[in-house]
């Protein structure tokens, strides 16, 4: 992976890797010696901003190919390269001809050409174009089209086990974390399943699934990452429909319902009758608030009010309100109207940390674990929080 950028931009990417390192370490999921894409940077400076950075990029590619002999190279352009009008594609083409390995450039230039997901999509498209060929179908195989971290993460494990109930085996995880061998397997999949998780990200991942369908006739499950029970039911039905096994989908749903009941027996009772306040400061493009109300109803908890945090713009607040209207939520108020008074609440479930250290707050992750496992995780953590001795407050990250 080459950043065509100033060195410091690559430091930021390195720092994101560093977070992942410690996150996996803390969850005992760190795998030593696992091959990873190495990060390189063309190191654009004032000089290249004036005279062009094409040669610098080429030197970078030559040095890394000579030393590391990678199977392929992907170049990501920074906004600086965009402003100075670098012809990165031409450099990549020339280097590819010289070295005889795929060397590709993502078209987007930092924030100039869309957001995170557009870059993610472009990188995925490049990999499809360069590594995938039509081949015989391997029955019962699935490719997960995902942006959910490591393929061994709890989220991916949950979807793997759900798919196993349909006798489907995940044999590729695309586009991140995929080796060339895995990339080459993608076009042999019987089905692709999208793990987006947000209104903003899902369409981009769906576009990748559509590309695979158009090129290799691989159907995909057109249903996003299932957070909450109703979403899980919907997802199970969608998988059943995609493989034409509605009866099997019914069985899978019943098995998951049983699993859910066990989760509630174990931890759900701890929330019964508890008073909850929801604080929402994340736009609906990145957050699905319905499942919280669903969960509160399932646990017999009492939702006192829902506070829309001031971090939301006026438009974003309106979008959350419209999304929640169908559920007739109790006391939907804005932070600017009544502040953040949480008196009487046993638990505050929030998208953003609140400054009041006396409050028992559960901070929701950007993307919770899907399926019944996700509900179980929430119940267990929320249960522990409300069971805290006396009046002790504090934060638990969901």
């Amino acid at each position: 992976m080459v950043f065509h950028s100033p060195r410091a931009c690559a430091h930021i990417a390195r720092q994101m890797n560093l977070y992942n390192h410690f996150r996996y370490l803390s969850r005992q999921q760190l795998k030593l010696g696992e091959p990873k894409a190495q990060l390189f940077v063309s190191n654009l400076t004032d000089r290249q901003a004036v005279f062009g950075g094409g040669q610098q990029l080429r030197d970078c590619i030559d040095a890394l190919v000579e030393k590391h002999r990678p199977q392929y190279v992907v170049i990501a352009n920074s906004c600086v390269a965009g402003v100075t009008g670098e012809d990165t594609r031409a450099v990549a083409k020339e280097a590819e001809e010289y070295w005889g390995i795929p060397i590709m450039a993502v078209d987007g230039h930092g924030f100039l050409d869309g957001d995170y997901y557009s870059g993610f999509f472009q990188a995925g498209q490049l990999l499809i174009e360069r590594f995938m060929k039509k081949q015989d179908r391997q029955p019962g195989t699935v490719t997960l089209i995902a942006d959910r971290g490591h393929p061994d993460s709890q989220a991916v494990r949950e979807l793997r086990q759900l798919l196993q109930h349909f006798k489907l085996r995940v044999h590729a995880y695309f586009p991140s974390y995929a080796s060339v061998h895995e990339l080459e397997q993608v076009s042999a999949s019987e089905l692709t399943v999208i793990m987006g998780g947000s209104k903003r990200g899902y369409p981009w991942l769906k576009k990748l699934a559509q590309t695979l369908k158009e090129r290799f006739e691989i159907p995909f499950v057109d249903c996003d990452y299932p957070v909450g029970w109703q979403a899980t039911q919907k997802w199970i039905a969608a998988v059943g429909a995609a493989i034409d096994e509605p009866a099997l989908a019914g069985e899978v749903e019943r098995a998951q319902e049983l699993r859910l009941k066990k989760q509630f027996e174990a931890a759900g009772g701890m929330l019964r009758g508890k008073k909850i306040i929801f604080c929402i400061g994340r736009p609906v493009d990145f957050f699905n608030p319905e499942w919280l109300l669903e969960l509160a109803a399932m646990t017999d908890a009492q939702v006192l009010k829902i506070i829309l945090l001031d971090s939301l713009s006026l438009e974003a607040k309106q979008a959350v309100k419209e999304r929640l209207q169908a559920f007739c939520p109790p006391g939907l108020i804005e932070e600017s109207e009544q502040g953040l008074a949480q008196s009487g609440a046993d638990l505050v479930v929030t998208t953003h940390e609140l400054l009041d250290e006396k409050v028992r707050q559960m901070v929701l992750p950007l993307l919770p674990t899907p399926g019944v496992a996700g509900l179980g995780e929430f119940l267990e953590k929320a249960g522990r929080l409300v069971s805290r001795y006396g009046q002790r407050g504090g934060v638990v990250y969901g």
Partner: protein
Amino acid sequence: MDSRPGQYACNQSGSCAMAGAASFFAGITGAIVVINGQLWCYFYAKRHVERQSAAAGEQIVCSQVDGTAIVYGTEEQLTKTLAHIKTELKPNLVAIINSCAVSLIGDDTSGLAKEAALDCPVVCVDSNGLAGGFAEGYQEAAKAYFNQLPVAAPGETQRHSINLLGCTTGYYNADADYRELRRMLALSGCQVIAAPGAGSSIQEIGCLRQAELNVVLHHELGGALAQLLFEQYGMPYITLLPPYGLQGTLAWSEAIVEAMSSRSAAWLSLQQEIGCLEREIHQGLLDVQRLWGNLWFDQIVVAGPTSTVFALAKAVRYELADTRRLTVICQDRYDWVQPIPGIDTVLASTSTCQVQAELTSLQGGLLLGSSNETALVQQLGIKKMVRQNIALPVLDEVVLVASPFMGVTGTRYLTARLWNQYIRLQELLD
């Protein structure tokens, strides 16, 4: 051009020039920093600052420039942001930092700031990300501040007074270190007039010329500023390695006293304190040494900002521990440092292959660095070693107690930490 192998590989995790510039300005009490750029870079710079100081992080806002603004200019977004600052925040100073991309389009940021008619001084600066990292951004910000806000001539110079230059809360443990330095300086009868970028207000910085001497703490941050103030106002300065270890602290304070016109009578108090602690540590460690042996590491690696790593490496080698081989890895330029006997190898953090080779031999060793080096060592499967964070980023430590590493008190903490970890290391069975 650096032709060493690995110059393009990125295994280091320094921060960017924008974070450096933002750290300087957010270190001025009452200032508001406007990142005139995209949200992504803003969040990165803000997070860097607020991890060390939540209050400083709150001083940073963003104009939220988008792709269209790179074509048509940032006027709309910046004007809106400045209007919000004027009506809602009422700062003492506004610093506008253009992101790398905005710097390249050449917007007239100063003109827009003038039109906004803010009720306070405004400093505009390009983040300088194409010139380097944190240090370059900090330097550029400091230079812009003093070029745009001249310091008034003093009525008279105050005896036994200094300014600390090249200080930032954007370094690991910085707040605790500065408190210790101020305590020591006060004990030795020396007054600190201002520490630009590390908590001084615009008014305090305005009195900077009352000081007898400028003392550069971190040369990579404050060296250029000291030179600028010398050229502009004739202010004398000295550049010293930061005071780590008791001998290092003594040498640091002696150099300051020597550079001033006269010696304060209180100077002896600091000398006495250092002497007392030296005896205390010597006696306190006797039993431990009898039981656990000497503090020995097969290899020591010290990685971080240049001034910090050289000063710490010297203290470790001369006073705290023994080793077969000591390597320092510098995040910034190090051509200004005189060779220090006892430091076997000096590397730039961009020399990825050589850095990797040094870290590979850390079994049974000591790593003084950041979580970045820790992660690299963990990836190599090395578990039996002592490590202590001395630089950012830090993702594997809780810091709730102010524990300086600089100065007299810092030596106490550092000695105890290294010894306790060394004992834990001996307890690990092979």
